[in-house]
C-alpha cells in the first residue's frame, strides 16, 4: 500500500468518558433560560462576573475546565455540543457497545472502529505495538486489532523481569501460545512488556480504594509520558469511568466539578507533554451520551441523548464551538426531555482519521453511515 507522504500521520489519543458525561456542564448554553429553570441545583454559572468562561457569546466553559481555555484561545481546541450517535434507548451498555463498534444502531460488528482504522493504515514502524491502552484492558474499540496491548504496570515489569530480559524465554512462551486463540494477544503483551519501560513513568496508586481522580490523573499523565517515550505508537486509548451522575451531581463544588477539573488539568498536562514532540498529537474526548436536561429529584441527572465531544491538536480547526445547537425549548428537546443530537459523532471521528491520521478509508471505521465533513480539521 502506498500513502501520500504529505498526508499527516498524527498520533491519536482517544479518551472515552464512560457513564454518560453531562454535556450541559462541559459546554454551558448560558443564554438558555430553560437551562437554569430545569437545573435548579446543578446549573453552572454564566460568564457574568467570571462564573464561567465565555467561549463565543452563546456557550461557556465551566471554571473546572479553565485549564483548557488557553488551548481554545490558541485555536487548538474545538468543542462540539449536541453530538452523539443515533441510538435512542439510553442504555449505557448498548450505547458504549455501539460507539466502540463504530456503528450507529447495533453492536453487531465484531471489530472496533479504531481496530478497523488501524487495519486500513500502515504502521508507523513495522512489527511494533500500534496501540496501547492506558487501562488494564484493551478497550472494545480496538477489538480485533493486531499489535495492541494494555500498558504494563511497573509491578508487572518487576515480576516479569526475567521474561523481559531473556529473548529465549520469551520464545518458549511464544511457542506455548502458538495456535492458541490468544496467540496474538500473548505476542503483543510480550512486545509491550519490553517496549514500555515503566521506570520512566509515574508510579501506580498503592491504596486499594484510590479515587477516580487519582486514577484519571495518572492515566492522563502516563499517556503523555508514553507518547514521549514511544513516538512509533500510533494510538493511545484512555477510558475514564464514573461519569454516571444520577445523584448529587452538584454545581460549583459538586462531584461533577471535581471530575471535570481532573479531566481539564490532566488534558492540559497531556498537551504540554506531547506538544513539543515532532510527531503531532490529536486528542479526541467523547462519551456515550449526554444527560437529561432536567435534573432529577436527587440533585443528579438521568441518562439523556446529545453530549459533548472535544478535539485538541494543532491540526484541529479549534477556537470554536462547532454546533447546530437545537436549543432547549420544550419542543426542541428529544422526547421532550433531552438535548437533540444534531451532529453525528462519527462524522467528527472520521474526519480526524482521514485528515489527521492519514486514513484513506475512514468510511470503513464507520461502515453504516454516510460521512459528512464538518470542517473540524485544518486543511
Amino acid at each position: 500500500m502506498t500513502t501520500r507522504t504529505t498526508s499527516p500521520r498524527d498520533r491519536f489519543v482517544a479518551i472515552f468518558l464512560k457513564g454518560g458525561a453531562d454535556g450541559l456542564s462541559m459546554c454551558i448554553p448560558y443564554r438558555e433560560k430553560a437551562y437554569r429553570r430545569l437545573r435548579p441545583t446543578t446549573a453552572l454559572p454564566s460568564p457574568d462576573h467570571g462564573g464561567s468562561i465565555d467561549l463565543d457569546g452563546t456557550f461557556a466553559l465551566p471554571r473546572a475546565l479553565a485549564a483548557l481555555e488557553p488551548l481554545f484561545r490558541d485555536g487548538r481546541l474545538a468543542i462540539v455540543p449536541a453530538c452523539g450517535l443515533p441510538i435512542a434507548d439510553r442504555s449505557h451498555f448498548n450505547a458504549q457497545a455501539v460507539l466502540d463498534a463504530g456503528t450507529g444502531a447495533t453492536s453487531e460488528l465484531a471489530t472496533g472502529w479504531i481496530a478497523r482504522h488501524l487495519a486500513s493504515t500502515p504502521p508507523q514502524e513495522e512489527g511494533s505495538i500500534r496501540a496501547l491502552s492506558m487501562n488494564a484492558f484493551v478497550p472494545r474499540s480496538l477489538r480485533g486489532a493486531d499489535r495492541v496491548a494494555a500498558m504494563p504496570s511497573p509491578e508487572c515489569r518487576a515480576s516479569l523481569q526475567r521474561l523481559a530480559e531473556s529473548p529465549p524465554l520469551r520464545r518458549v512462551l511464544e511457542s506455548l501460545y502458538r495456535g492458541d486463540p490468544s496467540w496474538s494477544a500473548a505476542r503483543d503483551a510480550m512486545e509491550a512488556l519490553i517496549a514500555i519501560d515503566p521506570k520512566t513513568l509515574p508510579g501506580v496508586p498503592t491504596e486499594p480504594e484510590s479515587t477516580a481522580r487519582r486514577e484519571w490523573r495518572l492515566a492522563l499523565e502516563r499517556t503523555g509520558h508514553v507518547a514521549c517515550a514511544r513516538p512509533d505508537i500510533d494510538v493511545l486509548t484512555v477510558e475514564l469511568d464514573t461519569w454516571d451522575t444520577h445523584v448529587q451531581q452538584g454545581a460549583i463544588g459538586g462531584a461533577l466539578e471535581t471530575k471535570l477539573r481532573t479531566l481539564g488539568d490532566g488534558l492540559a498536562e497531556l498537551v504540554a507533554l506531547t506538544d513539543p514532540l515532532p510527531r503531532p498529537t490529536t486528542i479526541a474526548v467523547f462519551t456515550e451520551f449526554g444527560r437529561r436536561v432536567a435534573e432529577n429529584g436527587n440533585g443528579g441527572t438521568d441518562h439523556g441523548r446529545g453530549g459533548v465531544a472535544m478535539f485538541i491538536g494543532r491540526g484541529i480547526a479549534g477556537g470554536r464551538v462547532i454546533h447546530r445547537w437545537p436549543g432547549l425549548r420544550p419542543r426542541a428537546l428529544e422526547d421532550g426531555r433531552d438535548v437533540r443530537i444534531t451532529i453525528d459523532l462519527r462524522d467528527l471521528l472520521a474526519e480526524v482519521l482521514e485528515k489527521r491520521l492519514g486514513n484513506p478509508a475512514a468510511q470503513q471505521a464507520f461502515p453504516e453511515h454516510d460521512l459528512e465533513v464538518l470542517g473540524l480539521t485544518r486543511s
Partner: protein
Amino acid sequence: MSRNPSRWTRRALLAGGASGLAGLWLWRSGFLSSTLDGPIEWLLSRTSFGATAASLDRAKSLGYEETLEEQLHPESLDDDSLERRLSVFSTLGLSGPELKPLPGEAIVRELVAARLVRAIESRRQLFERIVDFWSDHFNVNHVKGQVPRFKTLDDRDVIRRHAFSRFEDLLRASAHSPAMLYYLDNHLNTASGPNENYARELLELHTVGIDAGYSQRDVEEMARVLTGWSVDESEQRFGTFRFDSAEHDASAKRVLGVELPAGGFEDEGERMITHLAAHPSASRFLATKLVRHFISEEAPEAVVRRVAERFSETQGDLRATYRELFSRSSIEAARPLVTRPVHFFALVARRTQARYQPHRALETFEIPLREMGQVPFQWKTPDGYPVEACDWISALLPRWKFAFDVADGRVPALEVEDRHLDEASSWLRGEERALLESTLPKVSGSSERDRRAMALCAPSWHWC
C-alpha cells in the same frame, strides 16, 4: 491424573494470527471446534473452579448424571471443613443492626476473602460457580455509602439464599435488597423526584433485556412504580427494606403493557416483578446469558432454546434450568471459555494445593486479583464483570505476573510446595508439556523456578 482437557483445533487461528482481524473473525464465528475427550472432564470444567485429581476420580466413579445431580443439591453436600475455615470471619452471619456500627472496610474485606476461600475450597463447587454468575447479574459494587454493610446481607440473603430457588424469588429478594436499592439510587426515587437508575437496569440487565422492545416511557413508568421502595437505616431495622408510602407516586401507570390503576402502593412493584420474572423475553435473555457464561460465548441457539424452554416450563425453577444447562447435550456444545481472574486464581490454588490462612486471605488474594482485574464485587457498573474472552485475554501480563509470583514464592501468605507445582504441570495439554520439556533446558540460565513459572503461564490455565 493426567488428562487432556482441551484439545482444540487451533491451527487455522495461527494462520489468522498474522492478521488479528481475520483471527478474531474465525474465533467469533465459532471456529474453535473442540474434541471432547470426555464429557465428565467438560462437566467439571463448567461446574467447578477446576477439576482436581480427587474431584475427577470421584466424578468418574459416580458417572455424569450422578455427579451433576449431586452438585445440583448443594445442601446435601457436607461442607463443614469449609465452614470451620470461614469461622474466622465474624461478619458473614451478622444482621443489619449488628453490622451497622462496624467499619465498612472490615466487612468488605471479610466478604471478599470469603468469596475466594469458598471458590477454592467448597465442595459445593457448582453452587459457588452459580453464585459467581448471579453476583455479576445482580452486580452491586460495594464501595458506595452504606453498601459495604448491605452487601454482606445481599450476598447471603439474596444471592446465596436464592441461587437455587425460583428466579422470581431471587429477583424479588434483589428488588427488596438494601444493597441494590442503594447502589442504583432507588432509595432516592420518590414521587416528587423520580430517579430512573434502578428501574432501567431492572428491565435492561436483570430481566427482559434491551432487545425486549420497551421504550423510554416504560423506563419512566417503571421508575414511578418503584417510588418509595427504600431502605430502613434506623437502629433497630438497619439494612431492611422499607416501603415509604408517602413517597410513592399513586397515579395510574402503564408499564410493558400492564395497566396499573391509580391508588396502588407497594403491590404495584410486586406485581411488576411477577410479570417481569415470567416474561418470555426474560427466559430468553437469562438463558442466553447462562449459556454464554457456562457453555460457549457463541450461545448456540439449540442450547439457548432448550434452557429457555426449561426455565419457562418450570416457572423459573433455577435448579431445573441448571440441570438442562449442564445436560450432556448442552455440554457437547461447550467451547473453551476464558478463566476469569477469580477462576484462574482458584484453579491454580486448587491444583497446587496452595496453603493460606483465611484470616490473611485478603492479603493473599487482593493484589493479584486487582492486577488481573477482578476483585470480587468491585466492578463499578451494574452489568457485572464481563465474560468475553477478548477482554480478559487482552490483559495477559498480570496473569503471567501471578504465575511468576507463585513460582517465586512472592504471593503474600500463600504457600505452594514445589512438588505440588511440579505435579500441577500434569494438567497441561500434552503438547504444552512436551514443548516445555524440550525447549526450556536449552534456555541458558533458566532455572527450576522459570520452568514452574512458565508452566503456569501456559494457555491451558487461561481456558476452561
